């Protein structure tokens, strides 16, 4: 996957993104395991993914 590389906002590790990464996509940091959301593509910016307000099941 010759995708883009982003930096994990938590532990600054390199996070490989799929070539056709989509805005809003959720990826996981390979180092600290944090769930990250691709906030925007240009400029490429990541942030911790929000908790799902899971109200379907509970």
């Amino acid at each position, binding site marked *: 996957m010759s995708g883009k590389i982003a930096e994990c906002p938590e532990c600054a590790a390199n996070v490989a993104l799929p070539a056709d990464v989509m805005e*809003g996509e959720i990826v996981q940091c390979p180092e600290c395991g944090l769930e990250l959301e691709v906030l925007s593509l240009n400029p490429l910016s990541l942030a911790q993914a929000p908790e*799902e307000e899971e*109200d379907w099941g509970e």
Partner: protein
Amino acid sequence: MFILKIGGSTGINYDFIADDIAALVQAGEKMVVVHGGSALTNEVAEKLGHPPQFVTSVSGYTSRRTDRRTLEIFEMVYCGQMNKGLVEKLQSRGVNAVGLSGLDGRLWEGKRKAVIKIVQNGRRRVLRDDFTGKVERVNTDLLNLLLSAGYVPVLTPPAISYDGEAINVDGDRAAAATAIALGAETLVILSNVPGLLEKFPDESTLIRHIPAQSLDKFMAVAQDRMKKKVMGAQEALAGGLTRIVFADGRVENPVRGALNGAGTVIE
């Protein structure tokens, strides 16, 4: 007093249902009607060049992708053609129906899910421009105002968020919330199947009776749309209802049939 939920899937016979409601109202029965409109919404969305998209949440539930344009089409079908079509059928049979959406008078109010995490062909994504949510408060004052003046409320999504935005909500669970808020005992849910089927779509495997306390075991049996209906039933029971009936909306006397136990009775 009971709540009647009428599904929006193809095959449901609205004339049979309207005839039955008229007979019940003439016999002095009080009720609130809730209806859907999913099948027609898909058709119209297709024709208007904004085909319906369904998204599956990370925990496996499918729901309609509701961006702003979808919401407008949703309102056109649910609040326009379906709601007023049903009100017209009832009025022409002498039932003084009043059609309202959850927006009107903040009838159905709840939190908008500002963030939804979905899975699409294996990839997870956050959706922020989705207008869906869940009914958490029901304006029973407005409903009782209309009921005591002799009107039959005919309710439809959308609901309204606490910030006053229209939000798409599941009709079955909104019906359950309405039943709880009004203190009704019975909720009848009519759809295009005879009830909960052990082996969908084999209609001979109709489950006739489910004791309320063991409803959870049947969640596994329920197929996609029926899953939401079973969840609505769970919430209704937890909220104090004593009787929920899933019945067939394609046959004659569907409402009285259901009240007399035809379909899947949960009590």
